[in-house]
């Protein structure tokens, strides 16, 4: 991770978009930052946490996104600039509070919420677009088109937020948030910050000292006045620009990383003299006058944006309002099918759209090479599915779950949740998981399934949830299951970190965001205090874990809890040596004569286990194997040997 607090104004640094946003927050003089980890947003808070002490800011991993925004609003009410960051799904969690915060207004400290969207859902379960949400929330929204803007916009947004008195949002996408680029640094402020919640009622003071969304219709009306003021600011924003000929044959309207793709496409095709690019940084409210001025340049307009047709619809609506009698330009985009309304875009897709509209042919490499390259890659490049890391405790857990469900014999099923263990839907977890939605949903769905006995339902139900996800969203569903006597087993996969997003600490780890000791919120004490029976297992002990799961499935006293406790291997291996030296006893491994059908490589699927095509026996890849030793317990021939590792 780059150091974001260096005092080197004017120098250029290589930052990912998230580090640029964090640097922008420091340059804006924030005092408070809160977030829940979620790809692709996590490094915003992570990089702020790494400089919190030196920068005199408060930084926390909140238990979920709603609490993060609420905590940040608390800081704003007391006059401290605050930022809350999350992935697109987090906006859903926070939206109940946000919808009310918009009406109550903020305090004297500016408040900015960042959403990092994930087009194509590279590390998500969905690819929802935050821009329409900002519109229905009545929150001003901007989106950076490169790494420099990611930093500069944050600073600008804090000033806007305070001037107008409203929470503001910045939407980023994976290809800005997680891509790296040059960022020229500005100055870091030295001003001391003082927090005080002002309770003096002063009628001359326009700033409210009571923050509430009522009377709602009046507050709603006031928010619309604020949005009009924001639109005036957006009309003059430095983040909106036009580049290209005065009267282009085709005008591209774009925002975010699609701006970079559009520039790439125009340069690659060499059509700089025919195609202009109108880039918008301020997306809602739409700077109508600015847009109108540039729309007149061309009769062909192509919208290039991810995911929803947000600019496309806003601008078509604007045109309809402006020119009821005039001939409309030709609009190209998602409605016309030139740009996908799903997945992420890239320069090639924009090249294709421009070529289609302008009737150009584009061929990046000669036909002979193209067919040779495609054929060789097709013939010789094997698939590479994602899987649990070598030594991952989840593989052992799902092996035990698979065997326990089989031994139980009542067609039991598993409901899933969000984290690395979502991969248990596929071969990594032996296809054990049947449902996957949002944070905490597995437990909620299980609590419903567990109440179907009166309709003849008798399948055991296991809900799996990660440790961080448990604190974030599964606790209310567990309480629901206990209160309503629902028949299911909650299996908490406690690997001691928010592993999928980069090993961030959580309330169960005893460490804060900035690495200081914290009070451990014990999950077993919590569950027991709710009245649930709780068992703790070591998933590497396959035999006892399977037996415990079987026993718990046979209980019927409402929701009960099994905690699978083993640290994430990527975290453990950083501080400790391998547990075992693992190797194959070539005499004991009898290859395909065994009858196990290569259980270790074909079914267990640890990337550390390979098949030696020469000896026709199993083989350990010593570059990959981390020495967990679990495979030694699955081999029917006991041919996999684990020896205590020495030093």
């Amino acid at each position, binding site marked *: 991770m780059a150091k974001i607090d260096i005092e080197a104004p004017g120098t250029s640094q290589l930052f990912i978009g998230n580090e640029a946003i964090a640097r922008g927050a420091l340059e804006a003089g924030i005092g408070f930052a809160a977030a829940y980890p979620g790809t692709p947003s996590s490094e915003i808070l992570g990089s702020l946490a790494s400089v919190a002490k030196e920068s005199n800011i408060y930084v926390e991993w909140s238990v979920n996104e709603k609490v993060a925004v609420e905590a940040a609003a608390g800081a704003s009410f007391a006059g401290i600039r605050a930022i809350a960051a999350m992935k697109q799904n987090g906006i859903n969690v926070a939206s109940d509070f946000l919808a009310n915060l918009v009406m109550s207004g903020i305090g004297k400290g500016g408040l900015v919420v960042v959403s990092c969207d994930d087009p194509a859902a590279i590390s998500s379960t969905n690819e929802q677009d935050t821009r329409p949400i900002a519109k229905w929330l009545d929150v001003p929204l901007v989106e950076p088109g490169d790494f420099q803007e990611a930093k500069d916009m944050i600073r600008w947004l804090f000033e806007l937020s305070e001037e107008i008195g409203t929470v503001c949002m910045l939407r980023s996408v994976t290809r800005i948030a997680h891509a790296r680029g040059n960022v020229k640094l500005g100055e870091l402020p030295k001003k001391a910050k003082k927090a005080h919640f002002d309770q003096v009622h002063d009628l001359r003071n326009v700033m409210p000292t009571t923050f509430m969304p009522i009377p709602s219709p009046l507050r709603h009306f006031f928010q619309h006045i604020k949005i009009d003021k924001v639109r005036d600011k957006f009309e003059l924003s430095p983040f909106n620009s036009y580049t290209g000929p005065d009267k282009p044959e085709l005008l591209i309207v774009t925002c975010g990383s699609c701006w970079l793709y559009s520039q790439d496409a125009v340069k690659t095709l060499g059509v700089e003299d025919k195609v202009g690019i109108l880039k918008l940084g301020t997306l809602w409210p739409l700077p109508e006058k600015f847009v109108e001025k540039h729309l007149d340049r061309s009769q062909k307009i192509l919208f290039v944006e991810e995911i929803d047709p947000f600019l496309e619809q806003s601008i078509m609506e604007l045109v309809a309002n402006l020119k009821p009698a005039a001939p409309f330009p030709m609009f190209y985009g998602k409605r016309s099918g030139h740009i996908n309304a799903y997945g992420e875009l890239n320069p090639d897709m924009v090249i294709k759209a421009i070529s289609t509209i302008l009737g150009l042919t584009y061929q990046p490499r000669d036909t002979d090479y193209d067919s040779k390259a495609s054929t060789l890659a097709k013939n010789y490049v094997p*698939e590479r599915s994602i899987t649990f890391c070598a030594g991952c405790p989840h593989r052992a857990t799902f092996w035990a779950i698979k065997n326990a469900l089989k031994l139980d014999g009542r067609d039991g099923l598993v409901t899933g949740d969000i984290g690395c263990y979502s991969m248990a839907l596929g071969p990594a977890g032996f296809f054990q998981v049947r449902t996957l939605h949002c944070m905490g949903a597995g437990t909620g769905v299980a609590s419903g399934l567990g109440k179907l006995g009166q309709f003849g339902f008798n399948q055991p139900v296991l809900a799996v949830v990660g440790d961080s996800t448990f604190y974030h969203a599964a606790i209310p569903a567990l309480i629901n299951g206990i209160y309503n006597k629902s028949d299911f087993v909650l299996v908490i996969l406690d690997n001691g970190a928010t592993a999928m997003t980069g090993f961030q600490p959580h309330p169960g780890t005893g460490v804060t965001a900035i690495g200081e000791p914290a009070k451990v919120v014990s999950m077993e004490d919590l569950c027991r205090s709710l009245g649930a029976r709780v068992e703790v297992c070591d998933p590497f002990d396959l035999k006892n874990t399977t037996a415990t799961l079987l026993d718990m499935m046979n209980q019927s006293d409402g929701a009960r809890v099994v905690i699978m406790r083993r640290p994430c291997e990527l975290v453990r291996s950083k501080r400790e040596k391998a547990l075992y030296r693992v190797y194959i006893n070539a005499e004991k491994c009898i290859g395909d004569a065994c009858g196990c059908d290569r259980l270790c490589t074909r079914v267990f699927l640890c990337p550390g286990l390979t098949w030696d095509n020469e000896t026709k026996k199993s083989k350990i890849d010593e570059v990959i194997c981390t020495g967990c030793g679990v495979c030694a317990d699955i081999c029917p021939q006991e041919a996999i040997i684990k020896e205590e590792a020495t030093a």
Partner: protein
Amino acid sequence: MTARQLAKDPFNLIITGVGGQGNVTISLIIGNALVRDGYLVTIGETYGASQRGGAVMSHMRISKVAQYSPFIPDGCADVILGMEPAETLRMLGRYGNPNVLTIVNPRPIYSIDVTGGQAQYPDLNTLIDSVKKLSAKTWIINATEEAKKMGDPVFANAILIGAVIGSNVLPLNKKLTESILREILPREIKPNLRAFNTGIKLAQQ
């Protein structure tokens, strides 16, 4: 001798391998050395879920004039640095062209599709031949084997960074790269610098 300037602008480098190998670290080191040398660099990376054993790639766009997008258009790679041979061929299939220069570590990493029996890993000679057929020039750097001799396969990364300099495919400054290595890998700096110099020599042979 190190190249003095970019052969073209933007210059497109792909770094590819398997999740967990160190793709991001390599791109971070090369990218930072170039930024410190005054270039505009954009790096697009696939990671996140692909960290867990999937195919990973970094697209690096290097320019003196503009901040390019984090995606190299199809067929437009100038250099491919492959940490794994099958992944190198995957990249050539999509981004290769008759002028592409390829540096490849020939140590295979088998995917669960291969060990699970759903896919075939090709014969290594066929694989390397295919890489050569699709590249204007190929450097085969036995980075993993050399690194294992040094005590840890992780040193393969520094060897491959050295190979970028030794092969002279782009204007990567040796001194600046060394200082970035010291900043990013301070704890293991001695063996990494040794690996880095080994990589330079291997590529020059």
